[in-house]
C-alpha cells in the first residue's frame, strides 16, 4: 500500500475517534456544570479544558469568558478551532476522501453524511436539539463509522492501519482525561474521605460515565467511587475497551501482524510491559501525574516511530 494512503487511513481513524472523545469529554463536563455543587464555579470547570497556554489564548482571542455557551460553540462547531468536533469530522472526511478508492462505499457515505449534517449545524440548532442529544449524536455517528468499517472492510493492510489509528488515539485520550484530574491526587498523607467523597462521587462518576465504565466499576469494585480505583480501571484493566491497557494490547497485535521485526513493534511491547508490571499503589506513591505524563510521551513516540517505520514521514 502507498505510504501516503497508510498515513491517510491512520489519521482518518484518529480524527474520527477524536471527535467522539471530545464529545464524550464535553458531555461529562456539561453534566458536571449542571451539578448543584459546581454552581458558581463553572468558569473553573470549562477552563480546565484548555490545558496549554496556546489553547487558552486561541480561545480568549474569540471569547471573553469560559462559560458553557461560548466554550461549547468553540469546541463543537468552530471551524477555526482545529480541535473542534466539526474540524475533526472535516479532517476525517478529507482523509477518507483521499483514500476512498481503498475504502468501501459505505464508509465514505457514512462519514460524508455525518459531515454534511454537521457542516450545516448552527449553535441554535444544537440548543434546539439539546446539548446532550447533540453530543450523543456525534458519538453514535462515530459508533456507526466504526461498525461500518468493521462490517465492510477487507481484513488487509488498510484495515490494520485504521485499527492502529483508532487505538493510539483512544489510549491518548483516556490518559488525557485522567491527567486533567491528576493534580487532585495527593501523594502523601491520608485522604479525608468525608470531605471529598461527595465531590469524588460526582466528578469521578461523571468521568466513568463519559467512557462507559461506570457500570463496570460498580460490578468490579462493588464499592464507592475511589479515584485510585478509577485510574486503575482505566489504565490497567484489559477488559475495559477504552482503558489504556486494552488499547495498547490492540496496537501490539496490529504491529505484530504488520511488521513483527520493527522498531515500532518493540516500542509497543515496551509500553505494554510497563502497564503489565505497574501496580496502582506504587504508581500512586511515585506520583500519578508523572506516570501519566511519561506514558503519554511514550505513546507519542510510538506514534512517530510508526510513521517512520511505514515511511509516512521521510
Amino acid at each position, binding site marked *: 500500500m502507498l*505510504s501516503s494512503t497508510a498515513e491517510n487511513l491512520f489519521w482518518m481513524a484518529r480524527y474520527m475517534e477524536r471527535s467522539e472523545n471530545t464529545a464524550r469529554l464535553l458531555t461529562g463536563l456539561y453534566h458536571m456544570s449542571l451539578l448543584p455543587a459546581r454552581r458558581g464555579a463553572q468558569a473553573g470547570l470549562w477552563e480546565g479544558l484548555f490545558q496549554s497556554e496556546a489553547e487558552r489564548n486561541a480561545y480568549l482571542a474569540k471569547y471573553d469568558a469560559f462559560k458553557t455557551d461560548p466554550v461549547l460553540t468553540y469546541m463543537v462547531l468552530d471551524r477555526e478551532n482545529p480541535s473542534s468536533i466539526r474540524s475533526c469530522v472535516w479532517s476525517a472526511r478529507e482523509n477518507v*476522501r483521499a483514500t*476512498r*478508492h481503498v475504502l468501501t462505499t459505505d464508509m465514505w*457515505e457514512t462519514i*460524508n*453524511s455525518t459531515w454534511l449534517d454537521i457542516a450545516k449545524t448552527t449553535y441554535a440548532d444544537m440548543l434546539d436539539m439539546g446539548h446532550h442529544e447533540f453530543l450523543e449524536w456525534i458519538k453514535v455517528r462515530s459508533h456507526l463509522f466504526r461498525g461500518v468499517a468493521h462490517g465492510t472492510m477487507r481484513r488487509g493492510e488498510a484495515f490494520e492501519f485504521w485499527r492502529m489509528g483508532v487505538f493510539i488515539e483512544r489510549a491518548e485520550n483516556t490518559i488525557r482525561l485522567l491527567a486533567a484530574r491528576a493534580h487532585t491526587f495527593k501523594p502523601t498523607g491520608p485522604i479525608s474521605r468525608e470531605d471529598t467523597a461527595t465531590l469524588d462521587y460526582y466528578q469521578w462518576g461523571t468521568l466513568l460515565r463519559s467512557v462507559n465504565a461506570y457500570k463496570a466499576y460498580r460490578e468490579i469494585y462493588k464499592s464507592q467511587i475511589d479515584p485510585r480505583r478509577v485510574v486503575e480501571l482505566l489504565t490497567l484493566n484489559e477488559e475495559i475497551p477504552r482503558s489504556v491497557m486494552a488499547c495498547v494490547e490492540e496496537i501490539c497485535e496490529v504491529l505484530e501482524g*504488520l511488521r513483527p521485526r520493527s522498531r515500532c513493534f518493540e516500542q509497543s511491547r515496551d509500553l505494554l510491559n510497563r502497564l503489565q508490571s505497574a501496580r496502582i499503589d506504587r504508581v500512586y506513591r511515585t506520583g500519578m501525574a508523572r506516570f501519566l505524563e511519561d506514558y503519554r510521551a511514550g505513546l507519542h513516540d510510538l506514534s512517530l516511530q510508526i510513521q517512520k517505520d*511505514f*515511511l509516512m514521514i521521510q
Partner: protein
Amino acid sequence: MHAANGDIRAAYRDYSAWLTDQSLERLRQKHAQADLLFRRLGITFTVYGEDEGGERLIPFDVIPRIISHEEWSVLERGAIQRVDALNAFLHDIYHEQEIIRAGIVPAELVMTNEAFQPQMLGLDLPRRVYAHVSGVDVVRVDDKTFYVLEDNVRTPSGVSYMLENRETMMRLFPDLFAQSVVAPVDRYAEYLLRSLQAVAPAGVDDPTVVLMTPGQYNSAYFEHAFLAMEMGIELVEGRDLFVDSGSMFMRTTEGPRRVDVIYRRVDDGFIDPLAFNPDSALGVPGMLSVVRSGRVTVCNAMGTGVADDKAMYCFVPDMIRFYLGEEPVLQNVPTYSCRKPDDLKYVLDNIADLVVKEVHGSGGYGMLVGPKATKAECDDFKRRLKAEPDNYIAQPTLALSTCPTLVEEGIAPRHVDLRPYVLSGEKTRVMPGGLTRVALKPGSLVVNSSQGGGTKDTWVLEAPVVIEEEE
C-alpha cells in the same frame, strides 16, 4: 427527440409512452432522490473562482438521451476512425512529419503550438498510441448528421458521470431497464485497465499501473478516485512517486515498488518540474527522462495537445484521408480560421451569426455566442479578433438537437451534446454511451458544467436480438 418531420424518433418510442404515464410530481421526486444520491456519494466538482472547498453537484436530469442502434453504429465507426487518425498524426509529427512534407498541415501550426513537446521527437511509444483515452464531442444537427465539435486527447474527464449516471438511473427506474435494451457501459474500467496494460514497456509481464491525480482538491478528483477503485489500482500523487536509477517507483509501506504505466490526470505542464513548469509541486522530477528511456509509459502521452487544438481541428478530415485512406464518417462543423485573411473578414462581417472561440480556450470560457451577445460584446470581440486573429476560430451557430429535460416549468426541450469515450490500446473501442451534457437555460447552447450545464444518462439501444432456431 423528434425527427425533422415532427414524429417521435423510433429510439424514443417506448420511453415516450412510459414518460406520458408519469406524473410530473413523481419525476421531481426522482430528481430530488438523484440529487441526494449524488451528494451522499460525493460526486461533486469544484468550480474555479468559487469560495474555497466549494463542492457543487452537476445538475443531473432524470430523462435519458436515447440513441438508436443504427445511429450509434455510425457514431462508433466515426469516433474510432477519428481517434485512429489522431494517433497516427501524433506519431507522424513526432517522427517523419510526412503530413507536413505533403503540404497538408502547415509546419508552423505544429512547431509553434504551445502543446507541441520537442522532447517527444523520435520517441517510439508502445503500439504507437499517444491518446489512450479520448473524448470526441459531437452534436446532432439533423436526422442523419452528427458534427464533431472538438476532440479531447489530453486528459479528458467526465467518464465517471457516464458510469454514475447510469448507476443512478438504474436505482431510480429499475422498471425502465427491465423493459428496454440499453447497452451496458459498466465494463469501461475493465477496458481502460486492459488498454493501459497493453501499452506497458516492452518486456514487462505483469505491469503495475497507477492513476496519477493532482490531488483531492482538483475538480475531477472524484473521478480519479472512482476510476482507481474500479480498476483496483493505486491512486498516486506526485509526492508518492520518485525516479531512481532510471525507473519510476512509488513509496509504499513495504518500501519502493516499480511503476510501469501511469494513467495521469495531471496536465503536461505540471508533470515534471525538471522538464516543464519548475514551480509545479504536482509532478515528479525526472519523469520525462524515464519516459524517454522507455521504462515507463505515460497515458495519455505528453504532447498530445497539439492534435486537439481548435486550429488543428480543421485538418482532422484531411488526416483521416491521409493516414487511413478513408472518407471521414463524422463531419466537422464548418470552421473559419481567423488566421486566414478571407475567413477573418467573413467573421468580422457576420459576427452576430457566429460562435467565436479562442483556439486554446476550454470549458466554455473566452467564447462569444453571436446571436446571444449584445452589440458591445460583439464590438469587444471584433477588437480582440483584429488584435490577435491567430488566436480565434469561428463557427456558424448550429441548429443543435434538443432532448426533453425536466426543468422548472415542466418537461421542455433543451440543447444537448454528447461525448463518447474512445479507448486505444490493444485495439480502439468506444463504450456504447457517453456523457450527454445539456444546456439547462432555454435556448442556450453552452453545455459546460462550469457554465451551468447539466448531464443526462445516455442510452444506446442494442440491436434487436434475432434468435435463430436450431435445426
